């Protein structure tokens, strides 16, 4: 970087269209996903009526490229949608379904599955990691799974296995991935995974923002020792740190999303870094919100725990942190060496 004569713009502002997408989904989730619904959907983490509502809003079509009749939404837009879903802990496999449908549009554009997804609301998902038997995100509600196996990307279909109950109340399930149809190369899965990392990161940003908001709200309302507790730096500063973390993670997600849209060859480790950073920031925000609320924060009545559990749960489904870190190292070491000279 320092050695070359190169300057990049650093414009993080949303254009009116992007703001409109964000506003519209925020309003939609605000109206349709209260925390009562989130609790009701536990432990599966799926609400059929919400999923039907999202189908009516043509969520999948929005995310598909125009050459298969979609709206060709960009990644920045999709990240904004995922963030708003996260902000309400929406019990719907938005990220997995969007990423899997986009992959099918690339690899099997005229296949039956893609049309079932669009026509009947069938859910397809993706399986990160390695091995014959894997813990699959959205696997307990999906009827099709895309996975990397050896040198291939394969498609496995079947009825969803039972829920593997988990910390984040996500619809996880164990899938046997031995019996699949080859639909692409292992390299094709790189993009699938990258898109999934990025949108999961965006969802984590939403979770974290909701936790920050809950903490800040409580710190303004609750009084102790004759003053709102937000006036104590021991309360305010951790909330500031949580908020700074979420803001920076959001901007990292946006930057990674912009590169996915405009310079996919230059994304490098940005998407996986975004996931690692956003997962950590969201978890820290959840912990700060719980601590701000004191004893109440530790009860199930508090919403803070909803976000705290999901922050860890959603981020970690992507695979263990160590594997993701090694991926970052592999993607960056050569560049860093070149920079270091």
């Amino acid at each position: 970087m320092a050695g070359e004569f190169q300057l990049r713009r650093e414009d993080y502002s949303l254009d009116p269209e992007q703001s409109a997408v964000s506003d519209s989904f925020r309003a939609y989730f605000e109206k349709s996903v209260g925390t009562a619904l989130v609790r009701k959907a536990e432990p599966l983490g799926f609400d059929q009526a919400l999923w039907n509502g999202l189908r009516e809003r043509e969520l999948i079509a929005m995310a598909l490229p125009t050459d298969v009749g979609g709206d060709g939404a960009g990644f920045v837009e999709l990240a904004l949608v995922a963030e708003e879903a996260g902000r309400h802990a929406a019990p719907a496999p938005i990220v997995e379904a969007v990423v899997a449908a986009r992959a099918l549009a690339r690899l099997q554009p005229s296949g039956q599955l893609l049309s079932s997804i669009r026509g009947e609301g069938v859910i397809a998902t993706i399986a990160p990691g390695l091995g014959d038997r894997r813990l699959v995100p959205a696997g307990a509600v999906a009827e099709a799974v895309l996975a990397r196996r050896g040198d291939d990307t394969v498609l496995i279909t079947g009825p969803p296995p039972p829920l593997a109950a988990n910390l984040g109340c996500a619809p996880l399930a164990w899938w046997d991935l031995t019996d699949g149809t080859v639909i692409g190369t292992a390299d094709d899965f790189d993009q699938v995974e990258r898109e999934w990392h990025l949108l999961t990161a965006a969802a984590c940003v939403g979770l974290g923002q909701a936790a920050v908001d809950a903490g800040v709200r409580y710190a303004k309302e609750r009084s102790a020792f004759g003053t709102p507790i937000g006036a104590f730096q021991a309360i305010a500063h951790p909330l500031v740190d949580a908020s700074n973390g979420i803001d920076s993670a959001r901007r990292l997600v946006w930057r990674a999303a912009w590169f996915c849209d405009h310079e996919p060859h230059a994304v490098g480790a940005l998407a996986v870094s975004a996931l690692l950073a956003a997962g950590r920031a969201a978890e820290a925000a959840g912990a700060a919100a719980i601590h701000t609320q004191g004893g109440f924060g530790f009860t199930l009545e508090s919403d803070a725990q909803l976000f705290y559990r999901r922050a860890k749960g959603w981020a970690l489904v992507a695979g263990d942190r160590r594997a993701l870190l090694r991926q970052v190292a592999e993607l960056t070491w050569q560049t860093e060496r070149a920079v270091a000279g």
Partner: protein
Amino acid sequence: MNFAEIELDDDTLKFWDDAREFFCEHVTQEVLDEERRNGGGFSESLHLALGRRGWVAPQWPVEDGGAGLDAMHARIIAMELSRSGAPAILASTTLLPPVAIRMFASPEVQGEVLPGVADGTVRICLGYTEPDCGSDLAAVRTRALPDGDEWIINGQKMFTTGAQFSQYCFLLARTDPDAPKHKGLTVFLLPLDRVGVDIRPIETLGGERTNFVYLQDVRLDDRWRLGAVNDGWNVVSVPLSREHGIGDDEVDELLGGPYLAQCEQLLADFVRWMSDDPSTSFADDPSLRERFAELIVDVEFTRSAAGPAGRILSSELLMRTASRLCDIIGPRALLARGVDGSAADGAFEAGFRFAPGTAIYGGSTDIARNVIAERFLGLPRSTPRRNAP
């Protein structure tokens, strides 16, 4: 949203090339060695050379002694300055008071001071902090008493970095001890060659030298007063908000925070050391790769921070990075510069010592947190409001 490469025309590329050559020529090994030895945060030869090009204040109009550059060309100079590793603390503090000088000083005083700022012959240090007041600036005790057309100043300033190379001190003094704290202050531009000014060094953990400035019966003509008597709080607010990274037009410059470049430098030192060291293999050690990646993720995360958040995050990143690199490298990271076997010639040892100061000077990270808590999160004020009616 846009992160596209900015297309640079031939003139700009030539300008950049020229800027790099300029810093190669003027930031000599001797300049760097001198800074490592004495930590003055300033090189007069470099500063005067910058001044000859109008690059001390590159965005000032040419008729004011600047280079009339746009933001992008100024950014190129800033990047090359940072890349050169040249000491630049005083160069940056010098540019804060002129904002207030333009607003509040008489035309004569402006004419006497500002051309010198632009050509590099005039440097200005910041006389805010005192032994009993740092973050709580309104508690300043240095006293200025009127005496005819003059003022008599007594007191002491601390952490007056660059005073030994400065011609003026941008001085905050108390003129009305009975008024509420914020309301009894006045700002002066104090020429440092006055009788009664005594500059004494303070050595710091990071190797930077800063100063005490003792003021004993210093007589000062009233023309050096900036702004109305007892209106000093408003006068310092302009440069202060810049120093704290909360000015309106500064956002772009502060992306990633002020210490990100130093973190990247330490990482680059680490990568170079790793590549050259036959006893460690990056490829064969997954745990090493993971720890390296943690730092990379941290850097990308911090690069995305803006405004006062960037100030906090980049400072804490620097502390964490320096510490973790020492941990990864082991005892050789502890060896000082010039010692046999020291990793990256002492860069990590120096970085570890340097890092904590960044969370304190220029307004501590806790003050930045207060600002964010109040202004951005809307939390109630945590420090007592003294001037409440």
